[in-house]
């Protein structure tokens, strides 16, 4: 990396190091406060009607209402449960498939292009077809999100297995390790960093696919919440929904998936590219 020459100029645009530091550094809230002020100013100065943009106060009132009436918790819960279930399923099914494909050079070569193609035809594109097959229900959303999540997981598992130096495998085999031992002691740890990267990518794609699918399938979830609010011009609900979607994604990505990634790399990151 070019950074070998000299330290970089400024801290990369990642989250500030240290979770606890975020607590004491309320500086992270400053930009948002500035944004809210800007929002309010524009709303008042340009005299925008409530049909187009509501004020922060109205949005906050809508937030309180949505929490009080249990709507937010319900819809947010639906989305979270869905993404969680899909993630678990995709890992449980995708990782073994990725292993099976990655171990063999020819299998990996043949599947790589296919997986890229599936990635290109995003899960959302398949929605109309899945709706015909499974109807307008949570099953459709489930199918589409699992599809979106599983492709990067399989792909990255495959890559992870492929990049394990053959010497490691040969070394253990020469010591008499059987298939199972090889799997747990070489393949799994070696591929784990890549698998987790795949999970992280998949969660990014999957969350977006989830929101989009919920918009169309209209049976619960945050996407349904904000899209239905459109029909009744409830801009305050839309804005609250958008903020909640953003916050939840940040929580899931930065406080759950990223730590898993960092812990995995810290523990088994020797083979990481």
């Amino acid at each position, binding site marked *: 990396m070019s950074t070998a020459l000299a330290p970089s100029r400024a801290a990369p645009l990642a989250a500030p*190091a*240290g*979770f*606890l*530091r975020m607590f004491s550094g309320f500086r992270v809230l400053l930009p948002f406060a500035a944004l809210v002020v800007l929002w309010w100013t524009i709303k008042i100065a340009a005299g925008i009607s409530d049909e187009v943009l509501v004020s922060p106060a109205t949005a906050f009132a809508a937030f309180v*209402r949505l929490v*009080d*009436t*249990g*709507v937010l*918790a*319900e*819809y*947010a*819960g639906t989305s*979270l*449960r869905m993404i969680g279930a899909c993630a678990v399923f995709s890992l449980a099914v995708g990782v073994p498939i990725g292993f099976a494909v990655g171990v063999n050079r020819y299998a990996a070569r043949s599947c790589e292009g296919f997986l890229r193609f599936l990635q290109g035809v995003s899960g959302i594109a398949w929605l109309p077809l899945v709706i015909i097959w499974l109807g307008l229900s949570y099953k459709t959303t489930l199918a589409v999100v699992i599809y979106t999540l599983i492709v990067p997981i399989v792909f990255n598992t495959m890559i992870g297995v492929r990049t394990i130096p053959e010497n490691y495998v040969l070394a253990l085999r020469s010591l008499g390790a059987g298939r199972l031992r090889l799997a747990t002691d070489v393949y799994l740890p070696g591929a784990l960093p890549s698998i987790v990267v795949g999970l992280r990518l998949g969660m990014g794609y999957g969350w977006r696919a989830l929101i989009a699918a919920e918009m169309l399938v209209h049976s*619960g979830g945050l996407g349904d919440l904000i899209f239905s609010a459109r029909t009744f011009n409830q801009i305050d609900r839309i804005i609250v929904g958008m903020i909640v979607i953003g916050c*939840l994604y940040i*929580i*899931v990505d*930065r*406080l*759950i998936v*990223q*730590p*898993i990634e*960092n*812990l995995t790399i*810290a523990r088994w990151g020797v083979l990481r590219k």
Partner: protein
Amino acid sequence: MSPNPTMRAATRRRLPRFDREWLKFAAGMLLIALVLAGPHLVGMATAGHRLDPALKRPRGPSNVVVVLNFTPERFHSERVTSYGVFAGRDGALNRIRLRMVTPENLAALAAIPWVARIEPLK
């Protein structure tokens, strides 16, 4: 004292990387758990305030009116009417009549945080 911001930042007492990640993970899981289970826990804790005294010890299926503090949306109606037999509104949109509500369902209804009151159906 450290001479410049960089030194100060470097020597600031921080948790080791490993522990920081576990803390983040725990915090994340906690927040998600809060969203998923929080309302239910709050509802269960305040269940006593919801039930009309006449319904406190039901001996069998009861007929109730579920009162909400707001106009119910599709989701609210679906949830409430799943606990009994829907018998129309009780004069206003936010008063829902339910018949044949078993004691278990009654307890479940009482544990819903956004239900204001459950009154006996006269």
